[in-house]
């Protein structure tokens, strides 16, 4: 037989051996990372009647809940994960099991079977100051009740800052669990919502608040 030419040899080498199950290998990495405590931010998609949510948590609690994209108001999933990597920790991994409790509570909420969330919140993505105080005030609004942006501004210590209260709600990192959908305009209008005004109205309807 003639010696192989370089081209023949290179062609054979490009036909690399196959084998190894990537899916299983990735699962193995995740399991080991969880066991060794190397996952700082675990995230998972969660189905909802409004579309796919993305929920992320740290050891302290839920740090981010991204609503389905609505007319460019929401970040893409990639942008949400990039922000988590930048502002919380780059050790971000998809780990659905770590979010079982969050998923269960959200499902119950959407089915009308749950009127509060027991999962803890991690406020890491909320800067201190007015915005933080405003969102803490929002977190205390009971199920089925509403407040106005002016009321939230007052509770946050600056009654005239109702626009800033609106901005704080607009940048809420953990909607639904921190229920900014319960904050309305003073005139009674539902106002803006990251997931769209239709979603806000549907949530208020679910809670019997309209």
């Amino acid at each position, binding site marked *: *037989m003639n*010696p*192989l030419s*370089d081209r*023949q*040899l*290179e*062609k*054979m*080498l*490009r*036909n*690399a*051996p*196959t*084998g*190894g*199950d*990537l899916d*299983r*290998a*990735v699962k*193995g*990495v995740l399991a*080991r*990372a969880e066991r*060794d405590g*190397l996952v700082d*931010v675990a*995230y998972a998609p969660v189905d909802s009647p409004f579309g796919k949510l993305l929920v992320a948590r740290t050891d302290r609690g839920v740090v981010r809940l991204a609503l389905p994209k609505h007319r460019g108001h929401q970040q893409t999933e990639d942008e949400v*994960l*990039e922000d*988590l*990597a*930048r502002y919380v*920790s*780059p*050790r*971000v*991994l*998809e780990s659905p099991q770590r979010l079982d409790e969050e998923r269960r509570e959200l499902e119950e909420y959407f089915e009308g079977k749950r009127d509060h969330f027991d999962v803890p919140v991690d406020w890491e993505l909320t800067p201190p100051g007015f915005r933080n105080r405003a969102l803490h005030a929002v977190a205390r609004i009971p199920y089925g009740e509403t407040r106005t942006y002016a009321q939230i501004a007052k509770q946050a210590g600056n009654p005239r800052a109702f626009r800033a209260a609106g901005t704080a709600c607009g940048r809420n990192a953990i909607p639904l669990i921190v229920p900014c959908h319960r904050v309305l305009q003073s005139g009674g209008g539902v106002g803006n919502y990251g997931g769209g005004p239709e979603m806000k109205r549907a949530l208020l309807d679910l809670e019997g608040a309209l």
Partner: protein
Amino acid sequence: MSNESLPPFQALLDEHGSDVLGYLVATVGPHDAEDVFQETFIAALRAYEGLEHARNLHSWLLTIAHNKAIDHHRARGRRAVPAGDAEEVAGSVASSNSRPDEVVGGRDPELWRAVSTLPPKQRSAVVLRYATDMPYSKIAQAMDSSEAAARRNVHEGLQKLRGEFA
């Protein structure tokens, strides 16, 4: 950390996992590739926060994979060819679906058996060049060597392989 922030670690698995596994299958064999893949990514995850920039993450991961593959071969003893590995690499090639027009396909098992007997640097360079289709500049980064050394390793590896089939 610099302005160039690191992507979420999941993106490394999603974007580069396939290349890393392909490289490991060709260097340590399909049976052990998943274990070494795990070692590779866990080591990467431990070192990740200390990285100063997000450039060349692909090469960075393959460097770790290359080192883990060498550790693996060392751990398997000083035999240059762990027989099981070569058999498995060869077997997996034989069972992969070669297109009928690839007349050389039938010889692949012998070829990959021969690849697994190359010295570690030549083996890695040849696999990176052909199995994962990396340019020499990237191979140099992944193997922490010069581009000239990468070319030399590939060239010498090819020469040895051609010798096997002369």
